[in-house]
Each structure stands twice: as C-alpha cells, then as structure tokens.
C-alpha cells in the first residue's frame, strides 16, 4: 500500500500531467484558454481573482522553496530551523489566507451568478472541489499544525525532513516511501490530493497556468506574420464547448 501511494500513484499522476499537456497542446490548442467569465460579472471577480491568483503565486513560491531547498542548504547559510519555520509560517499564512478568501469568493460567484454557473463545465465541477480540498489541507498544515501545533507538533512539523525529501526523490527517479513514514496525516493527504490534482490538471481549465505570458516581456509590440507561414486552412478543432455545427460538405457534382 505504501509503495502504491508514495511511488506508483505519484508517477501515474506526474505522467498524466506531462503527457496530458502534450496531448492537449497537440490536439486542443483552441481549447487552451483561461476561459474568463469577466464579461458576465466583474464586481466579485475584481476582488476574488487577484486575491486568489496572487495568493496562489505566493503559495507556489513557498512550495518551490520548501520542497526544492534541502534543510542542509539553509543550515549552511546559518538560518536555523526555527527562524526558517517562522518566516515560512508567517508568509505562508498570509498567502494561504489570501488564496482561500479568493477561492471562496470565486466559487460563491460561480454558484450564485446564473450566467457564470451556466457555463460551468463538468471538469470544473471536478476540478474546483479538488483544488479546494488541496488548498484547505494546505492551510490545515500551515496554520493548524505549524502555527497552532495541531496533532502535538508544538514546534511545528518539519516537512523538510520528510515530505520534501520524498518529493525530491520522486522527481530524481530514486523513489522511496520511507521518508513519508511517520508524516502526519494532514501532510500525507495534502500530498496525495495534490498529486491527484496534478493528474487531472491538463484536462481542466488549469492548463492556462502553462500559458503564462512570459514571452510578452521580450517581444516587440507589433507582431507581423506572413500568410504563407500559416499553411493551408484547417478543419475546425474541438473547443471546450461546441459553438457551431460542423459544416457538412455536399458531395456529388460540383
């Protein structure tokens, strides 16, 4: 069971994450969008969306530091576990609260605005609860366990000795379930649900994260493109919602 949860399952999810994106890019570029609903409603969105997105970017930064920087590196820099923990918990709490507030506003908006709820797809209905669970568990870890000492970890739980080691081992293809033994339940669940989220990621609206317009900072303002480069006209591709009937071409004599 441990082998399945901490070795097989993560690889299934990560493979799905990568191959799913490749597949989506190859066959559904047209469906690759943030699917904004701002045209329908913008009052709640103008608060909820920036709160959520800036929050989640902070959370992402925290995860990059927490998972990829081994404890030994910060020790070498003379940063004690206690000080590291203090900074991580305080910044994490701010980012986490912003994220959750934003998400609650966005889900409330999605449910109560008829036009927005009308365009909520089946994948949204799977993705939002999953995202909500992952974020809620993350907040339990940061605030519950590490701030208030839930589960008897009065000094906070040192995930850098366990979860982070396991995660790095998975990514470097030396997987081992051992570092996760003894991890507290909320961290375990958070990691598992996060893996599941990564697994379904490419099939949901979350693909827009990989469309982050980084290149915009470097390109010239005006883009010219030649007609020749576009190639022959293509058949209409599948979008996230069918907007028209495919034109069936009459057969016979022309």
């Amino acid at each position: 069971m441990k082998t399945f949860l901490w070795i097989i399952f993560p690889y299934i999810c990560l493979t799905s994450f990568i191959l799913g994106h490749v597949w989506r890019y190859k066959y559904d570029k047209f469906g690759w969008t943030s699917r904004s609903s701002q045209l329908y409603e913008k009052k709640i969105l103008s608060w909820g969306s920036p709160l959520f997105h800036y929050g989640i970017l902070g959370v992402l930064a925290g995860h990059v530091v927490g998972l990829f920087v081994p404890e030994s590196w910060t020790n070498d820099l003379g940063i004690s576990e206690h000080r590291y923990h203090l900074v991580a918990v305080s910044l994490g709490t701010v980012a986490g609260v912003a994220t959750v507030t934003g998400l609650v506003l966005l889900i409330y908006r999605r449910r109560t605005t008829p036009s927005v709820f009308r365009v909520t797809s089946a994948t949204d209905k799977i993705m939002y609860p999953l995202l909500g669970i992952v974020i809620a568990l993350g907040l339990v870890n940061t605030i519950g366990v590490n701030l208030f000492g839930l589960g008897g970890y009065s000094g906070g739980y040192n995930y850098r000795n366990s979860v982070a080691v396991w995660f790095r081992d998975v990514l470097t293809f030396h997987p081992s379930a051992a570092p996760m033994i003894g991890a507290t339940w909320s961290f375990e669940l958070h990691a598992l649900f996060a893996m599941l989220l990564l697994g379904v990621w490419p099939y949901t609206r979350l693909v827009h994260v990989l469309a982050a317009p980084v290149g915009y900072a470097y390109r010239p303002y005006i883009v010219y493109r030649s007609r020749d480069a576009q190639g022959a006209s293509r058949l209409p591709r599948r979008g996230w919602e069918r907007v028209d009937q495919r034109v069936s071409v009459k057969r016979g004599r022309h």
Partner: protein
Amino acid sequence: MRVMAQMGMVMNLDKCIGCHTCSVTCKQAWTNRTGVEYVWFNNVETRPGLGYPRTYEDQDHWQGGWERNRRGRLRLRSGGRASRMMRIFANPKLPSLTDYYEPWTYDYDTLISAPAQKDIPVARPISQIDGRPMQIKWSANWDDDLGGSPEHTIDDPILKKISKKIRLDYESAFMFHLPRICEHCLNPSCVASCPSGAMYKRSEDGIVLVDQDRCRGWRMCVSGCPYKKVYFNHRTGKAEKCTFCYPRIEVGQPTVCAETCVGRLRYIGLFLYDADAVLEAASVEDPTDLLEAQRSILLDPHDPAVLAAARAAGIAEDWLDAARRSPVYDLACRYRVALPLHPEYRTMPMVWYIPPLSPVVEALRDTGFDGEDGRSLFAAIDALRIPVEYLAELFTAGDPQPVKGVLRTLAAMRAHMRCVNLGEPVDASIAEAVGMTADEIEALYRLLAIAKYEDRYVIPSAHVEIAGQLDELPGCSVDFESWSPHGGQGLGGGEPVPVAIQTFNLARRRAQADRFADLEEEQMKGES
C-alpha cells in the same frame, strides 16, 4: 524605406442612410454563433450618439490606444508591460456586457405550445446569456436616428468635448451615420496589448487577425483597442474581430459589408506605406499633426523610387498596378477628402472617412438658402461651428481646418456639377477656390458618384503560387469527392479546386453586370 502593402477602406458618409445592411450581412457571415451574439464586427452608429459599446471614445475612462510620454516615446495608454501584466487576473478596463448590451432571443415556443387561454400568449424576451426572462434595456444601436435624445445623446463623449463651449440645442441639431469596422491600423494597439502574441498584422496585406489557436483569453486586446473592435467570445474564451473578410479579399472580392452596401459608399484598395516610418509618425508631439503624419507615410504608387523599393520588398507587379489604381489612395492622398477616424489614438487607422456635407446642406436649406450654391455653402461651412467641430473631434483630433477643407471641396464639387448638369456656364472660380481644376473636380465627382464596382473595389488577388491554399470554405477542398487517384467526375484532373476560385469569375460577372439581362446574355453565349 521598407515598403509594405495595406488593404484600406474609405467610406463616404454623405451616402450613408443608416440602413444597417452592412451590419446585418456581416453578422450573418461572421458572428451568427453562440458566444458572439452581442458582437458586431460592423456596426452603424448615429452621431451624435453614444456608440457601441457605449462611450467607447472616452479614453480617459477606457484607456485604449497609445499615448506619447514626456520623453516623446509611445506607450500604451493603459500602462507599461509590467503594470498591465499585474492586472491580468481581473482586467479593470474591460467593458462589461451592459456596456455592449445583453443579447436576447424570444420564447417563440410559447406562441404555439401555450394551452388555450383567454389572453393571446406572448413571446417573452429571453436572455442569451443566462437563459432567463429579461427586460430589454439597450442594444447595439438603441439611440439610432437620435432616438432617446437628448437623454442619451448628452453622454456622447465627443459632444461633451465641444459642448463645454456650445450647447447642442434643438435648432442646431444635426445627425449622420458612422459605419465602423476594425481599422486594421498600421500601429495596432490591440496587437501590442496581446500577452500571448496571438494577434498579428499580416505582412502581405496588413489585415489584423487573431490566431485562435494561440489566443489564451487574457482580454488585453479588448481594452487595448480604442475603437473597441476586438471582442471576447464568452463561450470559446477567445478574442475575435473583423477579419476584413480575408477569405474574400484573397480572391479579389470585396468584404461582405462593402459588397452589400446599398449606398455603394465603400471603397477598397491598396495603400503602400513605409513601415520604418510608422513609429515616428505616430509619435509626433501635437495630435493635430497626426493626420498629416499619417498621410506622409503613405507612399505615392506612381513614384519610380517607391516602385523600385516595393519590388525590392517582394511586392508583386499586379499588386503595384492595383496600388496605382487604388481608389482609397486617391481619396485619402490625391484629393485629400478622406480622413482617418480618431487619429489622436495614434494607432494609424486604415479605414478612412469622407466627412458628410449633408448637415451643412440641410442647415442651409432649412434657413431658406440655396443648398447647392457654392458661395452659400462656403459661408455656411465657416458659420456652422457645431457640426464642423464635431467632425473635427472625430477625424482630425479637434482641428477644424482639414475638415473645413474637405467640406469646401465637396461643396465646390456640388456647385460645379450643378452648373454642368443644368448646362449652365461653369464658374471656374468655384474649382479655383478649393485649389482644383474643373477636370479634377469632375474626376472626383466620377469617383464619388458613379464609380462602378471595379472602380470602387481594386483588390488584387493573393498570389497564384499559393493558390492551393486559397479556400473560401475552410476544410472543404480536401473533402471534394473528385480527390481520388482516379480523378473525379466533373473536375478535369481530379485536383481539388477551391470553391472560391471556381465561382470567382461567375461571382465577379454577377457583381459587375448592370442588369440581370446582361448576365443571362453572357451565359447564353457561354453555353452555345
């Protein structure tokens, strides 16, 4: 000098009767789909009026287009790259549906499925956005023909600019129609705003398009465009815009809006321009100099130096020939009667307008004067400040002089042609007053009044080397039955021939024939 070709359009506003045929045919062709119910690539506005979306010209609010900063450099009015990226999660300057209008349909089914009852069943309006019954409060042309004025008209951003000085009272009321499509600008701020690089200007003909596969729905183009001519498809999550009917243009046919224009007021042709000079021209300090700056980068297609540079840039000979015969170049640069819409946005728009003389003529006639007399018209153009100032705010960044110049030319043409038509001796001083000769005036008259289909639309086809890609109906060429190793019936070699090419000559004959009988005769000849 880097010569590039640009498809341009000129609309003669005196001829627009506001029938909305262009809007309707455009909608049928392009935006007759879910997600773009509220979208009109072509719309016709009554001016004075709020426009569509409402008050889109108020750039203090919407912040579209470019501005010149203190160091004399152009930047997007909505801010630098970084500051706009900070606002990507909730674009504050995106018009909401209420600024356009909430599209609706009617519950027609009630009319036939309602049970027998005392009252006649009514088809209620149903929102196409949330599917619920709704109150219709606004549409794309709610203030058509000054409907609801002055209640609505008072909020016209252009009127606000000039009515600080003069109030628009009933006596001085004037009205004209303004058909609008995408401007296909030389310096498009929508393209510059697109974070994904999905929007581009085609290097062959300057048409501005959205790559639907690369658009990620960030909506920055919608706010970046000061004319609000990029729209967000709320179902596909992608930006869409006027395509200048490129599948038709590529085979030499005019756009749908131009083809179906009842008043025949649209002209389509080529401009040659110097792409290296665009930025400098768009950055001139005084906004009232922008009109001349814009004209200055358009190159004379008769100039041998320009032709040589164009050939060096790979522009084909038939395109250069089309540029020489271009009605839009003649109207904008030779006769200088066409003006760009809102040059102060610094996007170098390529849809030009001949401002209407009719408000002046009507005012003159209403006061008992002769509406076709040259001198009365000249005097009226100088006296009627409100219409002229209004037109100046639309076409010349507020400078009344160029507008007056155009109106005087149109007035001179009117007076001159009356002499000709009535067989009276021609008063040479009329033409002289606007710096033209009688021949020039008559040539302008022919172009504006009686130009035939092939004179109004001088559109070179895209190149034969790539004709295999030409296809009016995407995807259908490969579906032809004749596409088989044995060759099909009906088509010679079994090669797929795109429908557009196949029907091109027929369509052209149909469009250019003066009478249906001519066409039938020709067909008879062809068959025998």
